[in-house]
Structure formats: C-alpha cells, structure tokens
C-alpha cells in the first residue's frame, strides 16, 4: 500500500496569511452539515476532500447558513447538492451559473456558491461561465476538475490532457486541454485560484478567499478520478493519482509563465485578484437612476 502522504516528496504548505484563515472542523461537526454520510462517489475519488474543504471554508467565514445556497450542475460534482444539508439546487447540466445569476440578482444579499464539474463548466456551460465572469457577479464558482466525464463512464472532457486516453479518446486525445483559470481570468473574473486536494488546507483557504471576495470568484480544484481517468491512463492507485497531481502543481510564484510550457504542469494558488465594480452593486445604481428619472 502506498502511503497517502509522502512528506518527503510533497510538503504541505502552511496557511497563507494573505487568505482567510481556515479552521479545520471535526468530522462529527462536518457531518452535521451533510444529509447523508453515504455518497455515490467512488472509493479514491477526491470530491469528498473538496466538499470537506468547502464546508471548512464556509464555517470558518461564519456565513449564515440560512442565507447561503449551493447551486450545482449535473455530473459527479453536482451530486454535492444531495449531500450538503444547506439550501441546495441541483440544476440542469451546465446551467448552474445561469440559475445562480438569477438568484443573486433577485436577492443580492444571498451567499451563492456554484459547484460545477469540468464538462459542466467549460463544455456545455462554457457560455455561462464567460458571461458570469464578464459581469463580475458576486458568486463563487468552484469547479471540481477531474478532467473526465465520470458520471457517464469516462469520456474525454475539454480538460482531458492531450494524449490521454478516455472511452471516447481510445487512441489518445488530440485536442488541447482548456486552462479554465486562464479562460475565467480572460473573461473578467476578479478572483481566480487553483488548488489541489493534496494541499487540503490551502485549498480550503483558496475557496474561503473566493467566497470572501466581492465579485466573480473562480476556484478550480484539481480532483482525481482513479476509476475512469486513472485506470485508463496507467495510474489506477488513488494515492498515486493525488501525488502525481500535486507534483504537477507549481506554486504560482514559481511558475514561469514565459518559460517553456509543459502540458502537465499548472500553477496553483491565487492566480489573479483584482477589484472591479460588482454586478448587483452596479445594478443598484441603475435602480437609483431609474427611480430618479421616473420621479423627475
């Protein structure tokens, strides 16, 4: 058995003081936020770790649970809505951000967290992603990127790495993988971060940073799917997958954007953070102007 954590190979980073501090909660306490301890996620899937990181982030920020909702799409990641016992919406495939936009615009005081898979977010829902980012609407989009369609049995997704195999790229994927964070940044997201389940606390901090950010926050969690990705690509052991994922993750400070790009290396951390007027705040100005002109 391979040990889950190989400290020598991969060091766990300490908490980043520029991000909200996250307090790890006990398993018993975390479970009180779940409808059921059973999930349909496979053994070795890291979706559960990201779910825990999300709960830790929400609890650490002391969000009012009544005023917080989780809106998700379809796929393995979308099932999180069944497990969390907060107000949850399991939308149609790819439509989570569209529903979230309506919910946030109708009730700007609502904390809206959107969960998507990679296919959900950049294939069928790609149009909604770029426009939500462009609007800079104050929702936090957390993507569980396992680089494959898990729920339907392991087909290639827009984030499947070039050359990798899936049930619909049996000779190797000839398409370039999307860098979702770059896409979100280019479209106008004002907070963009990427983390891995291996670096658990940092991932939770990155999620908390996104939730605390006023504007469209995009957080990509690189998750592993040993069942469909691993087995088809020679890494069936979940711990091997996690370690490989972490070994490919380069802290953003060290990541050389201008140097030779390797398709299997990616920067992690806060990749982009800026301030720009948030959509619902801007629309409050529209209401003021409209009411001023109707009275005058």
């Amino acid at each position: 058995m391979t040990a889950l954590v190989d400290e020598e190979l991969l060091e766990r980073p300490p908490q980043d003081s520029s991000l909200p501090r996250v307090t790890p909660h006990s398993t018993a306490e975390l479970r009180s936020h779940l409808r059921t301890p059973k999930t349909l996620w496979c053994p070795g899937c890291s979706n559960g770790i990201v779910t825990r990181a999300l709960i830790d982030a929400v609890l650490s920020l002391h969000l009012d649970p009544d005023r917080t909702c989780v809106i998700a799409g379809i796929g393995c990641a979308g099932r999180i809505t069944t497990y969390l016992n907060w107000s949850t919406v399991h939308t149609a495939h790819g439509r989570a951000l569209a529903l979230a936009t309506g919910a946030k615009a109708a009730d700007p005081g609502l904390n809206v967290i959107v969960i998507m898979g990679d296919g959900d977010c950049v294939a069928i829902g790609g149009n909604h992603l770029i426009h939500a980012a462009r609007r800079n609407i104050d929702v936090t989009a957390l993507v569980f990127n396992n680089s494959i369609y898990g729920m339907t049995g392991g087909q290639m997704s827009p984030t499947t790495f070039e050359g990798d195999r899936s049930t619909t790229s049996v000779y190797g994927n000839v398409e370039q993988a999307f860098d979702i964070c770059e896409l979100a940044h280019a479209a106008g997201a004002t907070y963009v971060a990427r983390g891995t389940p291996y670096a658990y606390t940092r991932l939770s901090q990155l999620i908390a940073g996104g939730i605390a950010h006023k504007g469209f926050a995009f957080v990509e969690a690189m998750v592993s799917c040993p069942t469909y990705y691993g087995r088809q690509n020679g890494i069936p052991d979940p711990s091997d997958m996690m370690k490989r994922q972490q070994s490919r993750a380069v802290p953003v400070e060290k990541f050389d954007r201008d140097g030779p790009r390797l398709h299997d290396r990616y920067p992690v951390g806060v990749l982009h953070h800026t301030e720009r007027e948030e959509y619902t705040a801007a629309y409050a100005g529209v209401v003021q102007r409209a009411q001023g002109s109707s009275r005058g």
Partner: protein
Amino acid sequence: MPQPRRLVEGNEAVAEGAIAAGARFFAGYPITPSTEIAEVLSRRLPQVGGHFIQMEDEIASIGAVIGASLAGTKSLTATSGPGFSLMQESIGYATMAQVPCVIVDVMRGGPSTGLPTEPSQGDVMQARWGTHGEHSIIALAPSSVAECFSLTVEAFNLSEAYRTPVILLSDATVGHMREAVALPTSDELRVAERGEPAVAPADYDEVISTVDNIMPRPALGSRYAVHVTGLVYDRSRGGVPATGTPAVAEGLGLYLREKIYHHRDAICSVEEIEMEDAEVAIFAYGSVARSARAAMKWARRQGVKVGLVRPITLWPFPTEAVEHMAEQVRTIIVPEMNLKQMSWEVLAAVAGRAKVVDHGRIDGKLIRPEEIQDLIRAEFHYHHFEETR
C-alpha cells in the same frame, strides 16, 4: 381608478401586466417579434425596484428566471420560436422542480429562423410537448391587447397557485398590434402572493403539499433549507433523489400531472359567443379568433346560426367545453396558423359527434375573415347568402 385610455401595443401590455402581477425579475435575449417586452421591462423594472438582465442566450435566460424565482421573486422571460426551443430543457426542469415562472412566446413563422416578422401559431404543440418526458403544463393565448395584460396577470396567478411554469402563447399579430385600452391598476387586480408554507421550517417537506393544497416552495435564503432537483425525488424525504425507486418515480409523476389536471375546471377558460342556438361553431384562439369573430358576425347578419368558441386556455386542453360543443353543433370549423395542431385535439374530443373542418395557413399571413366565411358558406349550402363577402 383605471389608467386613462391610450394606445398600447400587445407586447407593452404583457410587460405592464407582468409588473402589475408583481413580477420583479426579467431575463431575456433579444428576438423578433418579442423584443419590445424586454425593452419595456428594462426601463420599467428598475423603476419599481425590480431587476432586468439581458442574458447570453435563451438557455441562460430561462435559467436565470428559475434562479430568481427560487430566490422568491416572481419572474418571467419572453421569446419567440427559436428561443422557445432553446428554453425547453429548463422548462422541463421547472415542471419537475415545481418552480413558478412565466414564459412568453410571441409566435412567429417557423421552423428554424423561418419568418421572423410574420405571425404563426406553430408553437401550440411545442408549448404542450416541447420538453421531454411526461409532464403537465399551462398555456394561455391572448387575442387582444387588453388580454395581453390580463392573461399575463393570470399566468402569474396560475403559476403561483400550481407551482408550475405557465406559457403565454402570443403571436406576432397580437404582440405588435395597438389598441386603445385602459390598463387596470394593481389594486383592481387579483394578484396571488408567493408567501411561505404554513408549517415551521423543521416540519417542511414537499409531501405536505397535496393536489388540493399546494404550498409555496420556500425561497432560497429563507429559514427553510430546501433541496431542488431535476432528478426524480422523494417528496417525503426532503426531496432527495429517488431514481432507484419505481414507486416513488411513479408517485411523483402522477402528482405532477394531477396537480394540474385535477384542477382543469378551475384553470380552463373558454369564451363562448352566440353559442345558444348555433348549428356551426368556429373554434379559434389567439389572433385568428379575431377573424373568426368577424366571420361569425357576418354569418349572423346573413341569418345563419354560427357561434364562436374561443379557448383562452390552450393547455390543459378544454376538453369539456369541446365535448359540450360537439353535442350541440353539427360542424366545428378550426382555423389556425399551423397545420392541424389544435384541430387534432378537437377531433379527439369531438369523437365523431360532429364534423370537424380544419383550415390551416403556414405562409405567415393572417387567416382573413373571408376565408372562414367561405367555410361557413359550405356548411349552409341550402342558404341564400346576400353578400358575396
């Protein structure tokens, strides 16, 4: 006190009706011939503290409408055929998840890009069966500017009462027509409020809603923690998915059907004119009903007994009114701007008790009264008609 009479366009009346009904959220995408609804609401909604948003496409528009409705705000979108097709997936979601909302489809000629500026009634069946799977739906068809207003209000009331999407099937003629109307003010209208379920948050579950007592869905961000899903769900277990339980799937499906069909009498609205002694009836809806009415008046002047049955509710289909009509008249003329979409329904309900004459047009032109007059003439071949037209 009603507002003063003024010339109002059909699409503008829809927008004002939505505001009077308490709608405070619109999401849409520009498309002829519905765009005026978006334009008017982009100006009017912020004036009343509401929210207008132009989305990236119609798929996003209906999505945002569902999201806003789940957050507790009465919401609508407006579109035409191509956009209506794009919305079908999420209309199905709204029927499954029981999300009240109003979808205005200002029908134009199709299929595809078709005849963008010309009227049609080609979406009658798309309104009924456009989304996949067994489901129920409510659709209303205005035939005047005043009705564009009143039926929009009614659409919201029905969507709140039955927790379902309601489709307002307008068309390019009704939408772009101007008539002098005095729009009612909010205090003259019956407007259904959303409210909260009549139980404490801890006791809330979907199953407390019955066919005869449909409770409002608590809003996201209220004290109630809800789970909303498009999967088959268990109404008695917090709405969690129950895809592996056939009995639950069937129970949910039947409940979703019955909560509409059980109330057919209350939902269905049909206008009957000169039907007391009619031997021949015209069954017409939307803008075509205006031509049908003119033809009926002509027939009465000619001394032949023709009446008009105008379904205001297209779905659920007003079967009882058609059965009643079939018992009374010998012929039913069904003019419509499509090929037999509604006349098949009439034929099924009539079940051989009367002759059904269909008359369709798909060239983007209105059905003129004269066309219907010719059909009437053929039903009274023994009668001497004074006027040729």
